[in-house]
């Protein structure tokens, strides 16, 4: 937001800016410290850490045992593989459906638009509830298949409204001239609309991606084979339900002395989070641009 200002700053401005900078620095610290803590803890010595798990600035003792043990378990790897499969299959479906829906809702002079809009919006606030939804997924034969984690969330109405807003912001003349050239709507969507709202698409990708990344509940309902669980459920088993699925992978005599269940938690957090945090700065520029253009205007 390079806003051209008059050169002179008043004292008020300076005070304001200093306070603002301090607030931002505090915010940055509060955001980073918990992550830093986890990294330190994961390299710590188990016994020393548990004796005193309060504020830490550097690893207590140093040990790589947590990582050694966490990587050994097959479920960590299969969990990773599953979430990657889910993302790879879901995201294209998500985007195409959202784009279609957004395009339709943004179009004018379609006779059935209003009822269809109502039909779509209604689902945003009214749902069948937990048990009927579960029964539905089973009756569709999706049980114990990754499809059960992909299809029910194939499109979010909320996101398609974002998409609609982005499309509405494009000038009408674009489509009109395309029609003149004999293009149909499908051509317009993929040739004209899609490239133009690319930044919004990037944002939607992130919304959907993060949604898949956060969700653990459906897998706990629909999956019965451990090897089909996504990584979040493995993390939940280790981190929250305190199931020591990773614990038994200790293999040497010294491993047996220490109880690693607690410290493995930190290693699992690092292992599961670092890749995402590594990818994200590369995507950042797209989604910032995207939201700039796609900002909801109502």
């Amino acid at each position: 937001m390079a806003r051209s200002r008059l050169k002179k700053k008043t004292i008020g401005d300076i005070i304001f800016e200093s306070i603002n900078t301090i607030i931002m620095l505090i915010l940055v610290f509060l955001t980073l410290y918990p992550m830093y803590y986890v990294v330190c803890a994961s390299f710590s010595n188990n016994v020393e850490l548990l004796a005193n798990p309060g504020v830490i600035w550097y690893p207590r003792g140093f040990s790589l045992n947590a990582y050694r043990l966490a990587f050994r378990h097959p479920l960590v790897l299969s969990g990773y593989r599953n979430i990657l499969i889910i993302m790879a299959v879901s995201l294209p479906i998500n985007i195409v459906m959202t784009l279609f829906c957004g395009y339709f809702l943004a179009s004018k002079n379609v006779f059935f638009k209003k009822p269809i809009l109502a039909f779509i919006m209604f689902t945003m606030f009214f749902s069948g509830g937990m048990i009927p939804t579960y029964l539905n997924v089973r009756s569709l034969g999706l049980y114990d298949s990754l499809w059960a984690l992909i299809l029910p969330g194939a499109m979010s109405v909320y996101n398609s409204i974002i998409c609609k807003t982005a499309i509405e912001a494009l000038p009408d003349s674009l489509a009109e001239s395309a029609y003149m050239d004999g293009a149909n709507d499908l051509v317009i969507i993929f040739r004209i609309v899609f490239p133009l709202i690319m930044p919004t698409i990037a944002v939607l990708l992130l919304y959907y991606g993060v949604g898949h990344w956060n969700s653990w509940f459906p897998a706990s309902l629909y999956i019965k084979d451990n090897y089909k669980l996504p990584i979040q459920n493995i993390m939940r088993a280790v981190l929250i339900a305190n199931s020591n699925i990773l614990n038994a992978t200790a293999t040497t005599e010294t491993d047996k002395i220490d109880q690693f269940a607690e410290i493995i938690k930190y290693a699992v957090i690092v292992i599961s989070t670092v890749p995402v945090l590594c990818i994200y700065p590369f995507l950042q520029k797209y989604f910032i641009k995207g939201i700039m253009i796609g900002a909801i205007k109502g």
Partner: protein
Amino acid sequence: MAKRVLSILLVLSLFVFVLAGCSTSKTTTDEGTDSTTDTQTDTPTDTDDEETEGFAFTGYPMDAKDVKLTWWVGHGFTLHESYASYEESPFHSGLSEHVGVDIEWQFPTAGTDGAQAFNLMLASDTLPDIFYWNVMRDAERYIDEGVIRDLTEYMPKYSPAYYKFIQSNEIYDKSMKTDSGKYYGYGFFREDGGWNDTYQGPVVRQDWLDELGLESPETISDWDNVLRAFNEKYGAVLTFPWYRFKSTGISGAFGAYGAIDFQLYIDDNGKVQLAQAQEEWKNYMAKLNEWWKTGLLDQDVMTTDDDIARTKALNGVVGLSYTSMGQLTNWISDANSAGTGAKWVGLQYPKGDDGTLSMVFGGYGIGEGISVITTSCPDEKLEIAMRVLDYAYTDEGHLYWNFGTKGVTWDYDENGEVAYTELVTEDPDGLNNAIAKYSGSVWSGSCIQATKLLYLKNSEESIKANDLWFYPNEEVTAKWKLTNGITLTVEESNELDDLVSAISTYVSEKAVNYITGEESFDGFNDYVAQLDKMGLQRVLEIYQGAYDRFMAR
């Protein structure tokens, strides 16, 4: 205006379309499932027809590898934590080999609650052939609803070993059938009777007691003193795996019969009562509250599980605790290998200052879980399924369920006793884990748990601890207990569903709030009145009836 009317019409027609869509897709899926089940049942029938006619049981392993049984297990002999699927698990894949039937095992996934998995399985009406879960109380209803099969007429023929076993003891036989005399499942029994039903109790750091010149605490006042002394000297607090303590804990010392979990008991007059509605229970909670307030009770105790308690024990932040034989074995071996000098020993259950000890955690040696055959198991497979289940109660199967394969995981030593081979004793995951990998009876299963297994699995000190928890108190370990074997009628079972779930949440919530002091004891009478309002009297009445019927069986 016209347009408005039109769009309303359109919305309506869309709904009709939707409903039509539903019903058509419903029918198609129904047909779909029907046809698949048909084919599923048909194919085995074809092969089975010859087979059933030709199938004559000649011993294990049976020659029935082409028969596939699905077996869902909700707790007890679920997958050991180091395996992700049953194919990897030596106990589960081994059982298939030993009985000669292809068993497809199903378990709740990692981190998933057993009850959740069970209810979802029922909700969707896709049943395995066999499942193991706590269904004894509701057996009549499940038979009536067509979920599980009544096995009465087949029992002597297809499960001779099991039938013979339950006939050998009146209480076994009584517990394994319904009020109307139906046999329907294969339960869990402890060879020792009740000894291992008292598998948990108080433990203490003997070295600290010695250092401070204290006697082993016997009464609640002694506990007070020891806790305070440990706290002052070592900064230690009272902590324990919460889920172990929740059922009854040390309620006996207060004349109470339960701790946090909804707990029914039989009073001295043979009447069914709710532990948490008694004045004695209030005193128990008041004591825990006092310990909580003074910081003697660990503030994290409610989130403490076996692992956390074990780490705390190793780190010397706990001196008096409540845990199980198996965990005590772990604590001792941790202390030895880390060289902390901690000396954990079992401790007698505390008594009230006037010598009160109303009850001790325990039972009749019959578990809550039971393996039942569902209606999904077709007649052709019934005999084979029953033979598979019967295996655990044969001499050979009994050894397999407890110790694994002879010559692989164990063999007889010179005294003719079972002794583990190096495969188990030298297992890198440690003896406890190793035993659990090869055994189906460590916690519970549809089998008879061998006492020998417990002696092999636990340290000498733990066995001594259990002796201390059980023998002096034998009289009060089981007689207060509403036995697992009671059954409810279909109507009772339906009625209780709603009542009990509401009351039990209410009770355990109040209990923790009494302990943390969120809830004042002044309101105890209101709390009891609220229980009555929620239908407690009706619950007691139903259970009383069921109990009386059980006694009359």
